């Protein structure tokens, strides 16, 4: 089985987020890492291989992003993926999800030209833009069925059966390869790279492709080709101090209720 896992390189969520003058995320000046939510996708791919012992399962980590984004691929390789493909091209900067999905789809097609791809896996959302739309867009572009937001993944042969936990109901969805599968953070903790994994990662094949390698024109992507535009950004306002109700004469309860009512909590 040939699996492609889409891994995104995102700014470290614990660090300050910066924007460029054109309102795109500053991805060069800040520390980045493999999106935590995509670690779950890598983990599920690895577990799949472990569960289906004896089968020949190859896992390729695919990332679209600036030069430093190779770190996201390296982390996936350290965790146990076999190969990396990094699509990097100045023209991609500022691409929205529609454009990003085009690049991912084309890259996946090139991977598939060498060896048929059975399964494309993604996280449930990126931790930076968090639109959650790439899996669907990818499926559309690749003309594949999509099974999204899987919290439990089981498979037998070509058939994948997943659990999808909604607010009101839990669905069991089945799909047949080839398909696009996105997994949630409920699938189980992702492993940390082992020492051997770290040592082995350096020797694993990692290809770097430009847009021309995958047959995408520069004017199909980038900020100017994007359907969406970010008009402005604003930092979240600092937390204001809470209101303290002191009760000296027994009026505390009333004051509390008044407060809750004024905020329309009750």
């Amino acid at each position, binding site marked *: 089985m040939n699996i492609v896992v889409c891994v995104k390189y995102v700014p470290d969520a614990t660090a300050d987020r910066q924007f460029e003058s054109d309102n795109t995320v500053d991805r060069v000046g800040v520390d980045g890492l493999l999106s935590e939510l995509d670690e779950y996708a890598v983990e599920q791919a690895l577990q799949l291989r472990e569960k289906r012992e004896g089968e020949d399962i190859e896992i390729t980590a695919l990332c679209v992003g600036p030069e430093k984004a190779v770190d996201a691929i390296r982390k996936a390789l350290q965790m146990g993926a076999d190969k990396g493909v990094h699509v990097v091209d100045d023209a991609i900067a500022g691409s929205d999800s529609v454009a990003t999905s085009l690049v991912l789809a084309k890259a996946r097609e090139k991977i598939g030209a060498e060896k048929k791809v059975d399964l494309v896996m993604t996280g449930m959302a990126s931790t930076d833009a968090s639109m959650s739309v790439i899996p669907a867009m990818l499926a559309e572009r690749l003309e594949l069925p999509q099974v999204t937001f899987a919290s439990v993944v089981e498979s037998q042969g070509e058939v994948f059966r997943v659990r999808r936990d909604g607010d009101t109901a839990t669905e069991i969805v089945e799909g047949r390869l080839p398909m696009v599968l996105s997994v949630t953070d409920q699938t189980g903790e992702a492993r*940390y*790279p082992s*020492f*051997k994994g*770290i*040592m082995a990662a350096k020797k694993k094949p990692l290809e770097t492709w430009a847009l021309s390698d995958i047959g995408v024109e520069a004017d199909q992507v980038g900020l100017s080709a994007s359907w969406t535009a970010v008009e402005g950004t604003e930092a979240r306002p600092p937390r204001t101090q809470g209101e303290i109700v002191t009760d000296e004469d027994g009026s505390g309860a009333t004051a509390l209720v008044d407060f809750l009512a004024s905020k329309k909590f009750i």
Partner: protein
Amino acid sequence: MSQFSETEERTELRKAVRAFAQSWGQDYFTGKARAGEKTTDLWLALGKNGYLGVNIPEEYGGGGGGIGDVAAVCEELAAVGCPMLLMVVSPAICGSVISRFGTEEQKQRWLPGIADGTQTMAFAITEPDAGSNSHRITTTARRDGTDWILKGRKVYISGVDEASHVLVVARTEDHKTGSLKPCLFVVPTDAPGFEYQPIPMELVSPEQQFTVFIDDVRLPADALVGDEDAGLIQLFAGLNPERIMAASFATGIARLALEKATAYAKERSVFRDTPIGAHQAIAHPLAQAHIEIEMARLMTQKAAALQDAGDDMGAGEAANMAKYASAEAACNAVDRAVQTLGGNGVTQEYGVAALLVATRVMRIAPVSREMILNFVAMHSLGLPKSY
């Protein structure tokens, strides 16, 4: 080490271990310690991820890395509040000695368990009358047929209750000269005649120290590690790793203390709105601590690089210096961190005071500051032997 930075892999290893250890954290560690419980689940998780045995050869279940790698693991764990004392002992001392001098059969028997944490090996050299002066070790092994009969007493032995075996430094009688020479034995902790009692210590640590009574413990011939005549060389093979690990343990704790202190100094304001970190009386001692820690880390990395390059002698001097510098840096850093936090520096909540004893120990064990100064005076400076 042809350049003054660690390899990319080492850096990645530090990053991975740090992230891993953060998911356990200092609260987990001190919580276990204060409850009198062990951190076995963390130990096994370390083993499972291959972090514990990074220095053990691959063919015996390890990572095939060097002492510098396992020291990096030890340091990063300590730096996030999970100092693993038994890493100094089990993979580093015992693992190094057995990897280098054990017979093929001994390596296969003991190394995989040391590497994955399912079998921990403690190390016992110190005796009531032989701490700094290990020439006075009296634990002796005598032949009985092909077996060995071991007798003696050890003190301050860490983690005996968590260990499946103890690597015991003893002496055997030289057939020719009649003089006693050191020999290393692997003793199962459940062997008849092997008993141990905890020593109450003022340490916040899940690991305890024990007095060990070895009362005519019968051991098979192959409990003796490697060659009967190579005991001294074997012992030395464990000492450099021990010092490098102790140094890393200390600088890790020092980094934790300094991180807590700087974070606090940025937030806490006492007079007006100026954070206390703006006062040089607070800032300079912390800056000094940082410099001392970085120098100690550099010397530790040098010692590890020399050791991994096979230069035992060169590594010996550097490892001693690294151990000295790290203990000093750690004691200073923790002392200054306590001062920076004021009263909070002594609370359990802020987790700094607990580091005081832990770092103070580093000036004493596994080799005291004075013995290192003796060594440097004599070997590095060529001064007369003073003891």
